[in-house]
């Protein structure tokens, strides 16, 4: 486990709560607030005893040790100004690369589902259970998933044969993957579905023969059949139990194993896209150009030694990997899920500190949830967090496909980086530029490197430059003071001269 999980120690701190987020409110056992330093969880009195029991349990120790569960410690009022005397509060380290399920690749969904099932299985064996099982309880540290909801654990009735979170797991993990695989519904659409899909929704959309596939028959077809619409809700009765606790445990373990098998079946092999083979098939790059570009990026990384790097348009991750190997924690962003899947698999296989996020920087993921205050927008999570932002072979996408003016691209970059920005300028003569120009020569056909420099001049100065054999240019920019500081200074000077 890397240093991200080290809990801060020291004298009482004033922690500023993230004002863009509502404290969590669904769990009857407690609520979570995100502060600038850590995550703080208030435990309600009714859940105090069970929470303390869990914290003292060998299960918690084992899960934290394996890196599957976020570490916790009891926070005191002397430790943090938010904590009132007599209340139970827990402190967790803040994971900065917050990603939401609608920004994950299929492989990340699978990894998060397998983590949830693994933890559920361990909990069952130890006499506990997960009371909820949703991807929203999982975050990624680099490429590794981690369960972040300590309040998900509760003591289980040793004779109960029901896993109460089973329905939620099926709706929020399994059925979105089923919908993505067999119906082509993008995983990104889960942004609109907090509680996933109901079996009936999938059943109604599936072709008849698919409803009988072994992986889908029970969780889609049978579950729909058992829904029995029109049944009057009756008072809660005792759940099914077995007389023999060993049998109950056996049933629950079989259920967890069966769900794991279904997840593996449904995920299937990765598919290819226009961009997933881009690096290997790029015709506009001669090997010498690629080498020259790699050398310049490597030299830049050695020069600026960034701790946090944002790679916009990361594709399959050649440069994210380079940054990670240079010691940085990398957030790799790309709108092409298939390309990013390759990147994530590479990062997971080689245990590199690269977090992958399927997102389009030009149409960033919006804030979501109750009053748009449950889940942060992408830009709220990214702004001002990076020492170096990479925009390699991405600027022509923003100009031609998103039709973003260079000045706005400069403003966006200035809001993301604390200091450095590495841009690959793609001239209009470039084959990729020409492919998307599509007759708009008057608007975009005459842009030059100088236009880019001028557009970025209010916030950045050029610190280094490298022209490649294919006429693309790598420009390293360094931020000047506060965002827009130079522009403000220029405007003030202009006003002063006009007054005079």
């Amino acid at each position, binding site marked *: 486990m890397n240093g991200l999980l080290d809990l801060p120690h020291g004298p009482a701190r004033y922690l500023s709560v993230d004002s863009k987020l509502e404290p969590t409110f669904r*769990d009857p056992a407690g609520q979570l607030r995100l502060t600038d330093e850590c995550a703080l969880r208030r435990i309600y009195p009714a859940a105090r005893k069970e929470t303390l029991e869990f914290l003292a349990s060998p299960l918690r120790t084992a899960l934290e040790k394996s890196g599957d569960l976020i570490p916790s410690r009891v926070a005191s009022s002397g430790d943090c100004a938010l904590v009132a005397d007599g209340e139970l509060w827990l402190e967790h380290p803040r994971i900065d690369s917050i990603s939401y399920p609608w920004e994950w690749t299929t492989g990340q969904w699978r990894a998060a589902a397998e983590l949830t099932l693994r933890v559920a299985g361990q909990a069952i064996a130890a006499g506990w259970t997960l009371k909820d099982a949703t991807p929203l309880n999982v975050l990624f540290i680099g490429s590794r998933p981690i369960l972040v909801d300590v309040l998900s654990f509760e003591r289980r009735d040793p004779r109960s*044969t029901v896993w*109460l979170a089973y329905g939620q797991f*099926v709706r929020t993990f399994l059925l979105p993957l089923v919908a993505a695989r067999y119906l082509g519904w993008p995983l990104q659409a889960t942004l609109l579905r907090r509680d996933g899909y109901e079996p009936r929704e999938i059943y109604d959309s599936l072709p008849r023969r698919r409803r009988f596939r072994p992986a889908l028959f029970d969780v889609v077809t049978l579950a729909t059949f058992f829904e*029995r619409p029109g049944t009057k809700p009756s008072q809660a009765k005792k*759940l099914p139990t077995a007389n023999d606790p060993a049998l109950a445990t056996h049933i629950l373990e079989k259920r967890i194993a069966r769900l794991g098998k279904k997840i593996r079946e449904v995920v299937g092999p990765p598919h290819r896209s226009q961009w997933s083979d881009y690096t290997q098939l790029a015709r506009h790059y001669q090997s010498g150009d690629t080498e020259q570009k790699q050398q310049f990026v490597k030299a830049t990384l050695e020069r600026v030694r960034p701790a946090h790097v944002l790679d916009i348009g990361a594709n399959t991750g050649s440069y994210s990997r380079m940054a990670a190997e240079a010691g940085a924690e990398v957030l790799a962003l790309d709108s092409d899920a298939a390309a990013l899947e390759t990147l994530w698999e590479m990062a997971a296989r080689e245990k590199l500190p690269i977090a992958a996020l399927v997102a389009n920087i030009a149409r960033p993921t919006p804030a979501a949830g109750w009053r748009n205050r449950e889940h942060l927008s992408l830009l709220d999570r990214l702004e001002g967090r990076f020492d170096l932002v990479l925009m390699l072979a991405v600027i022509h996408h923003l100009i031609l496909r998103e039709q973003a003016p260079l000045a706005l691209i400069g403003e966006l970059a200035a809001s993301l980086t604390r200091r450095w920005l590495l841009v690959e300028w793609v001239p209009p003569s470039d084959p990729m530029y020409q492919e998307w120009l599509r007759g708009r020569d008057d608007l975009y056909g005459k842009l030059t490197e100088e236009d880019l420099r001028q557009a970025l001049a209010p916030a950045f100065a050029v610190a280094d430059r490298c022209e490649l054999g294919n006429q693309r240019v790598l420009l390293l920019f360094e931020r000047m003071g506060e965002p827009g500081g130079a522009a403000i200074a220029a405007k003030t000077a202009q006003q002063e001269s006009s007054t005079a």
Partner: protein
Amino acid sequence: MKLLQVLPLVLMFMGALILAERPAYAYADPGTGLLALQAAGSALVAAGWYLRRKIYTFLQRGKPVVGNQEENASIVPYEDSRIS
């Protein structure tokens, strides 16, 4: 013969489990159909569990018994009881 005697009991047990499906005590929605599906699945696994126990007892019938016979008959090694 013994298996035939047990089967109706198993089927009754399965039916009872399926009918026992009701809104449950949970903060995450356990679903309706998915909760019933769990009950049905539990019944099937339980049926396998009991049948194996009966088969095990049946196969052990002719073998010499050491110690308390009644006690030994109810012991099924956990791994052996799993359905593959």
